[in-house]
């Protein structure tokens, strides 16, 4: 069977810097992300995703607005969230926004739903972390119902009940693709399969091949729940430049900086040069290097993980717009064609 592979780029609205290292404003970063999305289509990329974040260094809580701006200037590239923090949002509102994006873009919208590995949105919107699991479970269940089309009937503890509710705008040609983002909890894989979502594996550290069991678990769970076959996507950070040395030299200080920033709340260890070398090597999770290096690693891991889509999380706080545009160009023009070649 011939598999169809697709390749995307994801951003968190990472706050960009000028060449001298001074940060750009939130607004300029957002405008740059729109330019990057438009450019991604020109570079031949299949998907552009924006992940909801609420911080000074990821000032992008309303990515769907930026996606609409990109939709207006593009024709083919698919556009979606990576991720929507569903737990602290209203599933009806999320559906309405992305059904509207789907209309504006002529059927190119997608969502990747997440529980929130960053938790700023919980206190911001008045949610209790103790409800972390229940919020996502209920809201993902409701979102699955919304995708089936109106009228919708649902009740639960986390928002008002719906009784034969007509939710607009109606989908023009059936549900848009919807994925659940999983970081390593096998129960989340089971939930994605049970509700009929596709699976997005967020792999940001350690040997990617260890997630192969999760892909297999997903496939077996889909069968067990009587769900149709659904694709697996891999999302991992990376950076592409002319040479491995240049890519690593650009990426490393920014990577160390951002992990040190998030370490306090998430318990990550501060990276060292040795750990960075491991992660950018063949058994690590960072796709940093020349087009050939990055392409070989993507092909190997897509195959090992039974995935048919790969999204490169490009950019980091502190990188420049020019560096990001170079990554996008090299990814679309050289990496993706080479991966397709390697995958046959």
């Amino acid at each position: 069977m011939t598999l169809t592979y697709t390749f995307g780029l994801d951003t968190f609205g990472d706050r960009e810097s000028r060449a001298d290292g001074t940060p750009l404003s939130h607004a300029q970063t957002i405008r740059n992300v729109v330019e990057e999305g438009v450019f991604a289509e020109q570079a031949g990329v299949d998907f552009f995703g924006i992940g909801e974040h609420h911080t000074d260094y990821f000032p992008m809580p309303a990515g769907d607005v930026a996606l609409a701006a990109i939709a207006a200037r593009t024709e083919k590239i698919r556009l979606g969230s990576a991720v929507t923090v569903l737990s602290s949002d209203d599933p009806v509102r999320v559906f309405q926004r992305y059904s509207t994006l789907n209309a504006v873009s002529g059927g190119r919208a997608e969502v990747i739903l997440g529980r929130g590995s960053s938790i700023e949105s919980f206190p911001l919107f008045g949610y209790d972390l103790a409800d972390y699991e229940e919020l996502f479970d209920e809201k993902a269940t409701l979102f699955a119902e919304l995708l089936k089309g109106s009228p919708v009937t649902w009740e639960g503890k986390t928002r008002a009940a719906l009784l034969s509710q007509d939710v607009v705008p109606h989908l023009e040609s059936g549900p848009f693709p919807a994925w659940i983002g999983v970081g390593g909890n096998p129960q989340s894989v089971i939930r994605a399969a049970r509700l009929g979502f596709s699976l997005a594996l967020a792999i940001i550290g350690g040997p990617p091949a260890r997630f192969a069991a999760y892909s297999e678990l997903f496939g077996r769970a889909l069968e067990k729940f009587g769900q149709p076959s659904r694709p697996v996507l891999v999302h991992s950070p990376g950076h592409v430049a002319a040479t491995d040395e240049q890519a690593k030299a650009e990426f490393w200080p920014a990577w160390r900086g951002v992990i040190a920033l998030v370490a306090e709340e998430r318990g990550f260890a501060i990276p060292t040069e040795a750990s960075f070398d491991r992660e950018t090597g063949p058994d690590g999770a960072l796709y940093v290097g020349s087009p050939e290096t990055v392409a070989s690693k993507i092909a190997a891991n897509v195959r090992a993980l039974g995935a048919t889509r790969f999204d490169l999380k490009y950019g980091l706080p502190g990188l420049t717009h020019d560096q990001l545009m170079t990554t996008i160009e090299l990814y679309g023009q050289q990496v993706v064609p080479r991966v397709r070649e390697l995958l046959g």
Partner: protein
Amino acid sequence: MQNEGRLAVLGAGHVGPVIARLAIRAGYPVAIATSGDPDDIALITELVIPGAEPRWASDAVADADIVVLAIPLHRLTDVDPALLADKVVVDAVAELTDRIGYDPVRLGGLPAGRVLQPGGPVFGQVLTVPEFERAVHQDARSLR
């Protein structure tokens, strides 16, 4: 290596399966449980923790010598401390608020065969490292 005891791992999320896999590799018999039906974790067990036995939590704990708690902090109230009374309890629930990452805390000399008691000053708490060190030594003293 001589292995002592049967393990019951409570929690099949991020942490439980990893500890269970390592314990199996080290030769321990391992039962894995959540708050629900073991049938619900049969597939996870088969593919992610091969060799572990999915069981009801109360059965797993009853037959175990060592119980690993790998559940969210706010679910600790679901666990009946009386069931853990004569077990070695490995608490993966407690949070150290001033420690980054998973580096071990060196506690110095402790009496052999000690147990951190459910309901004690360390069990399932949110502590700084100095508070944790004091609490462990306080726990140890209370057993003599």
